[in-house]
């Protein structure tokens, strides 16, 4: 660091003594005692029941946490039972609850709640319903499709007037596409269930209103759905005042709790509930609940008033903010209301007569409270809905408001001078940005004589022209607010560091803080953008930072692909992690970056964080280094205090992981300051290069004009007209998205290579490929292009090349680990070895392009069931965004190599649907004939049924095609017709021949205008056998989709089911499934799973009709190939259960294949195949393909943190569970051995 004192982006450094102001709250937040992190054990004795203990008893903690944790804190402590199931973005609420229960955290009555994971949200709702009926205080957490699955039970729970609260991180629902992001489509789908709907707009509100919801539900007997915006609120980190357990005790009336219990089912005072009613009484019964709904709004307001008396924050059913004499009013609920609030503050300060009415209680909707809250001066109203109801007159809130006003005027209760103009608008679907700039535009619209109705804002609708255009440069950001943006890679710890930064500033100063984190759609090499605000005033900015006074770029490579300085304010600070020092960095920046730095007069700092981190023993994790630099330059805290705070934070975060980790982080902190340098910015642009194009110029038009924008982070600019109308996208587009994320790539030693094909097989990203081709083809090969003589006798006169795609490789290293060919003079040197990528990048790009241009070997010449031959089959699944070293994708790739040109894929929601179908680009691709897998994702729970439906359709259309062929045989020609109808398609040549026949058929039918001929043309392709694949993970197959899977296995549908078993819900972050092994730690099984893994193979084999294979590529790649071939050949349902290593197992994925082998050797994952066809031949259908366990289970499992962390945290329990798990392995092996030895001779 230079000697010069760092400049501060904070205007007033004395933040510690600054008074805080709460603009909208009735009371200021008192200074708290030292903040506590969440999850501390509540050892307090409960206050006497009925005692309003705690009223003003102690100052409340100020805590820095996200919306999910804020809500879970309340829900957990006022509940006895939580029935849970993971779904983004609500999963962390269940996870926190489970973690607290596992360490014995007690609720306000001094008992530890039961937290139970179910098999689906439908199951969770059912269990909740049962728990409530039996008298418990119950809760659950969910989002999106999960909430939709709860709807049937929600009707029941509400119909029976049962107190409970479902907390919902509101999220988009799957329509033309799935989206994990926030809007109100899910919540609005429940508004008819009878649940009360209560909306929170911020993290603080989410905690507060969670408590109000529980209290009001007990009193009103109406169940509540408390919701807050997914991600924007659920994942926003904010400093809030934490409700104490005393607050909760004071809010929850124990007499009401006892009353709830008294209504429970009990054989000691039996009743019957859930009768069937006939036309004579059902209607009346439905109306009987009315008084409760009439009373509910007042009960909620009373609870809010009581809350204000206890805590000091006053809420209302409808909260008005703005000018007392407002003429133009926006009505809105959720986090968007805060952006409107901010804009209203800005506009009223300028004398504008505007206001915002925030709706909190949406159901039961109180017309009376609404009319009271609306300013009498209102002339125009815009009702904003964060949802979409195609075909409706307007979205639900709009319709409610119009109806409420109409009723008000009709009844003469509305105090407005005249019926206002009311328009509805849609905004913010799937977390689309909603900013004050848009708000200002809407207020402008309201001033018009005829404001546009049913408008949209935030998009460009050039099809039905609903959108309002707006000035996106308009900003209401306060200059007093520190706005910092950080660009990082998922793996570099940037987000984690920023979360720590927020905690430090939140806990060590009086500043308000806000952190929001944006991730791209890839699981490996993902770009993260952190948006941090620090302010002396409460922060209402529920939108991303677009004008920053600090920009940190934590990866130098981003400079050539992202415009990281776009949001930088003039005079702001730019911190860059750079391998180049202050004197050399300038010429290594692209021209556009140089221009921005000069034009905006940025203060520019560099540090070689990678080197500092490496020297401190931290490997590639630069989080601590960059965090220290931020504090050093930003001046948010005095430097010494900042360093002390960072170290304190390190101890808190990493202390329990051991001294060594803490020491290394400390060393990184100390070294950071010494290596931070200010760059003397030259006056002129001098660089010889600029930003690289996002996609190459030769990419297809759709990729360039649509997907390219998404890749560049400019997807918001894509107009409606450019979007497919029905969610249909081209395949084969990942090839255009060169992510260039590998630091090292495999390099082939052709002299050593035995051409076994193992590296090609295990590559999760299809970036290492082999071809055998005519030597004449390489006449124009680029210099250095490697070739070898093929090690196949039949191809001896051809050439062989193994080639790597340098910009698609993720550098996982699995290929090198699996390579069996070692040098005879240097054992560490294999036939492929990892080498630094940058020097190879350009050269290998040329090689790769050239390699792709070489012809594919005819599929007919290859033995598809052999590993060695399979490497020469073209993969039709490539460059997915799966985790580096993913254990699932190699199986999918193999499937596409073998059957991809005739495959239909039904994919359950989960990892495989995300890396398989998440935009911007898609990994399923086509061969040069244009054939490849056709892929679709229906839902999480219905995938087996979805795939079976595909099979039925294929079979039916084939049957119809055959009927037409028979009918038209004379026209077609008897020979061709007979050939088409009697084709043997069991082999690859058979398929090819049938394709030729179909081609001939089409030629014959061309121009024939008869209905039969045209029908036959439409279904002719179905005459070629199709391979239907049903793909999903264990969360689907073992849990939520098991009912459907079971049904399909029991059917005779010729489908192939690939169950990618990672033994946890990987996609949502590692929650326990019924596949999770005994003794493994997972979320929802934080103390280690106590029950054995479900033996789904045994269940499937019991039907006796399904082909079942239990495979692990690392255990036997040959058996894997056999299983795929046999599964496809079996004319009936086939189930392949594939061991898939996963980062959720807690070890470096480079060892994934080795661990697969250990799983097999230990007996945890026996290899076997069950082929029903063999029984008919008098043979045992069950064949064990692996040997008896040869290593103890612990030799396998203790390589993985999911097991070892239990040894570290609870050694005795771990020992016990290991013992049981070993017994299970032994018993299971005995059973399988017995099965394999059975005679089936007839």
């Amino acid at each position, binding site marked *: 660091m230079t000697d010069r004192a760092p400049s501060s982006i904070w205007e007033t450094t004395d933040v510690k003594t600054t008074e805080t102001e709460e603009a909208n709250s009735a009371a200021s937040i008192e200074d708290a005692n030292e903040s506590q992190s969440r*999850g501390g*054990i509540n050892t307090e004795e409960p206050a006497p029941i009925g005692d309003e203990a705690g009223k003003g008893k102690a100052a409340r903690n100020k805590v820095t946490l996200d919306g999910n944790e804020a809500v879970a804190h309340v829900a957990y402590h006022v509940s006895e039972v939580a029935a849970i199931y993971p779904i*983004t*973005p609500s999963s*962390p609420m269940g*996870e926190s609850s*489970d*973690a607290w229960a*596992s*360490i014995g955290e007690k609720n306000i009555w001094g008992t530890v709640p039961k937290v139970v994971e179910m098999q689906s949200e439908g199951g969770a709702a059912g269990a909740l319903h049962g728990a409530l009926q039996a008298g418990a205080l119950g809760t659950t957490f969910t989002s999106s499709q999960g909430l939709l699955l709860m709807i049937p039970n929600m009707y029941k729970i509400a119909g029976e007037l049962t107190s409970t609260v479902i907390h919902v991180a509101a999220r988009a629902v799957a329509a033309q596409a799935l989206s*994990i*992001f926030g809007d109100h489509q899910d919540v609005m789908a429940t508004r008819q269930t009878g649940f009360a709907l209560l909306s929170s707009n911020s993290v603080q509100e989410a905690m507060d209103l969670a408590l109000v919801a529980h209290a009001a539900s007990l009193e009103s007997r109406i169940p509540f759905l408390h919701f807050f915006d997914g991600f924007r609120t659920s*994942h926003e980190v904010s400093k809030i005042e934490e409700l104490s357990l005393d607050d909760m005790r004071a809010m929850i009336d124990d007499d009401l709790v006892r009353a709830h219990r008294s209504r429970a089912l009990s054989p000691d005072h039996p009743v019957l509930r859930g009768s069937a009613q006939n036309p004579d009484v059902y209607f009346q019964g439905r109306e009987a609940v009315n008084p409760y709904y009439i009373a509910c709004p007042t009960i909620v307001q009373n609870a809010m008033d009581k809350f204000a008396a206890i805590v000091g924050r006053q809420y209302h059913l409808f909260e008005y903010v703005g000018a007392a004499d407002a003429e133009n009013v926006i009505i809105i609920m959720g986090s968007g209301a805060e952006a409107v609030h901010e804009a209203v503050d800005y506009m009223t300060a300028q004398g504008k007569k505007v206001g915002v009415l925030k709706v909190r209680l949406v159901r039961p909707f109180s017309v009376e409270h609404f009319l009271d809250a609306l300013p009498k001066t209102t002339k125009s109203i815009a009702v904003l809905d964060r949802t979409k109801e195609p075909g409706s007159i307007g979205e639900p809130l709009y319709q409610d408001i119009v109806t409420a006003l109409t009723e008000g005027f009709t009844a003469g209760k509305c105090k407005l001078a005249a019926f206002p103009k009311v328009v509805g608008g849609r905004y913010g679907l799937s977390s689309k940005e909603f900013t004050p700039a848009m708000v200002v535009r809407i207020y402008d619209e309201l001033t018009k004589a005829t404001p546009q109705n049913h408008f949209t804002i935030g998009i460009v609708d050039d099809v039905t022209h609903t959108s309002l255009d707006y000035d996106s440069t308009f900003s209401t950001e306060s200059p007093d607010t520190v706005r910092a943006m950080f660009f990082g*890679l*998922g*793996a570099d*710890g940037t*987000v*984690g560091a920023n*979360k720590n930064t927020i905690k430090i500033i939140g806990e060590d100063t009086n500043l308000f803080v806000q952190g929001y*984190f*944006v*991730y791209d759609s*890839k*699981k*490996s090499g*993902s770009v*993260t953008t952190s948006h941090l605000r620090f302010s002396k005033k409460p922060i209402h900015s529920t939108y991303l930072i677009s004008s920053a006074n600090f920009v940190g770029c934590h990866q130098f490579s981003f400079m050539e692909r992202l415009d990281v300085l776009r949001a930088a304010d003039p005079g702001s600070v730019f911190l860059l992690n750079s391998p180049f020092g202050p004197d050399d960095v300038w010429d290594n920046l692209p021209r556009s970056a140089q221009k921005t730095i000069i034009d905006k007069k940025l203060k520019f700092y560099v540090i070689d964080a990678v080197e500092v981190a490496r020297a401190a023993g931290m490997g590639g*994790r630069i989080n601590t280094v960059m965090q220290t630099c931020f504090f050093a330059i930003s001046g948010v805290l005095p430097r010494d205090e900042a360093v002390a705070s960072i170290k304190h934070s390190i101890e808190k975060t*990493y202390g*329990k*992981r*051991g*001294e*060594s*980790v803490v020491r*290394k982080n400390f060393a990184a902190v100390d070294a950071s300051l010494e290596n931070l340098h200010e760059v003397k910015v030259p006056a002129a642009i001098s660089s010889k290069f600029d930003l690289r194009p996002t996609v190459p110029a030769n990419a297809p038009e759709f990729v360039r004009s649509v997907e390219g924008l998404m890749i560049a982070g400019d997807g918001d600019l894509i107009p409606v007209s450019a979007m497919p109308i029905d969610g249909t996208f081209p395949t084969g587009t990942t090839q255009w998205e060169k992510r260039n994320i590998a630091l090292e790539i495999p390099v082939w030693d052709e002299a050593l290579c035995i051409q076994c094909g193992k590296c090609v097989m295990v590559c999760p990203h299809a970036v290492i490929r082999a071809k055998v081709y005519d030597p004449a083809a390489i006449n124009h090969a680029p210099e250095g292009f490697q070739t070898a003589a093929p090690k196949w006798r039949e191809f001896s006169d051809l050439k062989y090349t193994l080639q790597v795609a340098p910009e698609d490789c993720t550098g996982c290293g699995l290929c090198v680990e699996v390579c069996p060919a*070692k040098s005879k003079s240097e*054992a560490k040197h294999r036939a492929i070895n990892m080498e630094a990528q940058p020097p190879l990048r350009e050269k290998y790009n040329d090689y790769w392009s050239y390699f792709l241009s070489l012809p594919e070997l005819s599929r007919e010449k290859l033995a598809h069931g052999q590993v060695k031959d399979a490497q020469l089959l073209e993969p039709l699944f490539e460059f997915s965004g799966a985790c580096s070293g993913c254990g699932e994708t190699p199986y999918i790739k193999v499937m596409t190599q073998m059957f991809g040109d005739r495959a239909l894929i039904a994919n359950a929601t989960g990892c495989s649907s995300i890396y398989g179908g998440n935009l911007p680009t898609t990994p399923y691709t086509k061969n040069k004939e244009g054939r490849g897998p056709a892929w679709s994702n229906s839902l999480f729970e219905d995938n087996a049924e979805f795939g079976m439906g595909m099979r039925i359709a294929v079979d039916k259309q084939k049957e119809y095609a055959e009927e037409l062929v028979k009918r038209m045989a004379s026209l077609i020609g008897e020979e061709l017709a007979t050939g088409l109808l009697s084709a043997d398609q069991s082999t690859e040549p058979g398929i090819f021949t049938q394709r030729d026949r179909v081609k001939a058929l089409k030629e014959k039918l061309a121009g024939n205008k008869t209905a039969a001929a045209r029908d036959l043309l439409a279904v002719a392709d179905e005459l070629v056998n199709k391979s239907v694949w049903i793909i999903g993970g264990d969360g689907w197959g073992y849990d939520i989709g098991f009912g459907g899977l079971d049904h399909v296995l029991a059917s005779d549908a010729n489908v192939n089911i690939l169950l990618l078993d990672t033994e946890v819900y*990987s*996609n*949502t*972050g*590692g929650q326990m499934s019924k596949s999770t092994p005994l003794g493994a*730690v*997972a*979320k929802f099984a*934080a103390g280690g799973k106590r029950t054995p893994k479900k033996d789904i193979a045994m269940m499937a084999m019991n039907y006796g009709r399904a082909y079942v294979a239990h495979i692990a590529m690392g255990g036997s790649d040959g058996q894997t190939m056999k299983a795929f071939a046999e599964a496809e050949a079996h004319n009936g349902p086939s189930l392949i259960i594939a061991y898939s290593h996963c*980062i*959720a197992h*807690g*070890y*470096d994925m480079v060892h994934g294949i080795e661990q697969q082998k250990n799983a097999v050797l230990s007996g945890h994952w026996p290899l076997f195949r069950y082929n029903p066809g063999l029984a008919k031949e008098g043979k045992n259908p069950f064949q064990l393909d692996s040997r008896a366990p040869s290593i103890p289970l612990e030799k396998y499992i203790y390589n993985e*943190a*999911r097991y*070892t*962390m239990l040894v*570290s*945290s609870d*050694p005795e329990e771990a020992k016990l569970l290991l013992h049981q798990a070993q017994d299970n392995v032994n018993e299971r092996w005995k059973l399988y051995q017995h099965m394999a030895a059975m005679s089936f001779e007839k």
Partner: protein
Amino acid sequence: MIDLTTNYLGLKLKNPVVVSASPLTEKLENFERLRDAGASAIVMYSLFEEQIEAESENLDAAMELGTNSYAEATTYLPDMPKYQIGPDRYIDLIYKAKKTVDVPIIASLNGNSRGGWTRYAEHMEQAGADALELNIFNIPTDPSVTAEQLEHGYCELVRAVRKAVKIPVSVKLGPYFTSMANFVKQLSAAGADGVVIFNRFYQPDFDLEELEVTPNLVLSSPHELRLRLHWAAILYHQVETYIAITGGVHDSTDVLKSMMAGAHVAMMTSALLKYGIEHIGVVLSGMERWMEEHEYQSVKQMRGSMSLVNIENPTAFLRGNYLKMLGSYKFGEAGSALPTY
């Protein structure tokens, strides 16, 4: 009455059979069995600072793997409220062992950093360890480091630990020192109360099929005792320090030989792993029987009786031993293997 008592590191022991550092002492239940079998002291398994660091870093790496990379899964494993990472488990075991058995407990430490050696040594003392065995030997692979520098480094380390704790400290050595007697003297001067000769290294094996070097644990064999006897006999009377022999002590005669060579105690592990913990009793009764038969009254009486200074022909311990052996070897003699040198 045969007197088997001995003194080691200032600890009065009921007999010279001490259990050496091994996985046997990882489990608390084994301490009682070892005591009941007759062990006079127990050296606990070694606490490896390097291993502790690796555990800590592996846990950290696993917890961070994939975190905050993707919106749906910001973490993949639940974080526990606490972990027994670091020396806690070891320290706890010392504490529990001291409460469980009344035989002296000697903690064993293999450090990796100067701070680590003294920090963990202090923890061990505080937990109640009766003595400390420093497992100092690292494989010297750097050709730029001289033997003198290495030896100096070891002595500095002993000095630092000596300063940090009050309990007796012994040093477990490897056999690969050019001037063993001199080095032991240096260690003694640095504050070591005793030396344990010699550490056995788990030399990895070569897997010719996979072309991999694989860790391979081989139990000691009785012939390994010879090297220890040899050096104990040389060190006895030349250095004022306690001597423990470890490696190749399998039966009662091995213990007797160790005593006669000059050792204060003989340490066992391999034989216990092979024959069971109760084998200690067999060894002790074997000693008593032999001593009775040969009219020895005490271990003290025999200690060092066959050391370099007390043997009639000391050249047996010197170069002559080698020459004589070669000369006495007859090719083809029944029961003898062909020499391989």
